[in-house]
């Protein structure tokens, strides 16, 4: 795991965050539910909560789908290429490429659309950025920068859990059972050293 330069985090007094969707996108409840599920992956392991609000402009985390140049200097590039980006804490800006073929249900591995991208997989990754994690070299981790089309990866790896808990501590009710069984970088190094 890695952190942004300077290790920015949400301030201590802000552990119960709100999120909202760009009204212009008019997302269905089914699409919104994908993000709720993605937030839960992180709230399971750290003492933070994420609650939807209808007030986009006052929300801590603002989620929007945009096409091409959308004003932040990081234009999207159409189908595939870059899929989404998110800003470090406490910005809360979460942008997704509106040109992608986002899949929000069903078995994506059997999709007939070769450029199908699993929305929840990308959402879990970008929320990691919103909370302060950078990219990881551990291929099994959520914070690995690339994802292949027609694949789903939504479970936090040990590497992700160790990184985020270093920033915010552990959720007291976390029992360690919700992550995939991949070793963290640190664990692999320790093992190699032995």
């Amino acid at each position, binding site marked *: *795991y*890695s*952190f*942004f*330069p300077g290790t920015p985090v949400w301030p201590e007094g802000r552990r119960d965050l709100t999120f909202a969707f760009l009204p212009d996108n008019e*997302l*269905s409840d*089914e*699409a919104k539910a994908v993000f709720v599920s993605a937030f839960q992956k992180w709230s399971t392991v750290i003492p933070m909560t994420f609650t939807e609000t209808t007030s986009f402009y006052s929300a801590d985390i603002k989620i929007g789908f945009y096409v091409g140049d959308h004003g*932040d*200097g*990081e234009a*999207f*590039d*159409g*189908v*595939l*290429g*870059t*899929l*989404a*980006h*998110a*800003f*470090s804490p406490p910005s809360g800006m979460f942008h997704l490429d509106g040109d*992608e*073929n*986002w*899949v*929000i*249900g*069903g*078995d*994506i591995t*059997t*999709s*007939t*659309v*070769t*450029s*199908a*991208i699993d*929305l929840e997989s*990308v959402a879990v*990754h*970008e929320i990691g*950025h919103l909370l302060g994690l*950078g*990219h*990881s*070299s551990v*291929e099994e981790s959520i914070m690995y*920068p*690339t*994802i*292949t*089309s027609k694949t789903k990866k939504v479970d936090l790896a040990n590497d992700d859990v160790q990184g985020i808990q270093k920033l915010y501590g552990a959720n007291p009710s976390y029992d360690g059972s919700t992550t995939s069984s991949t070793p963290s*970088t*640190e664990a692999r*190094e320790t093992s190699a050293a032995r």
Partner: protein
Amino acid sequence: RFFPNITNIPPWLLPNVTVPAASSAWDAFQKFGNCRPGEKVDGLAKLKKYFNYFGYIPNLPTNFTDDFDDELESALKTYQKNFNLNVTGELDEQTINHLVRPRCGNPDIVNGTTTMNSGKPMSFNSSKLHTVGH
């Protein structure tokens, strides 16, 4: 475009979305296979922009050239290390196949340093560092 249950939708009912994987934004990189340091190949500047965007090449005052120069080779080696590929400094098939994968738009290297691989920071020996707003 959202697909609630994409499995059940035959491709011929999805005009405009039956896009083959090869038509991604970075498909042009496929033609750089076996390209070696010292060569000049049309379009390499676009690959340098890719590496610049994700933090592997620091910002330069001039436009990127199509030369396979030391800067590109260095960026390739750092990229290959970050993604656990064989560190060859060349545009081998394994590296190109990885470069064209869809990915997060956040840079891997911010302000010229990265801890992405094995928790060991790497730095560029340059005062002109790539900075993004993230």
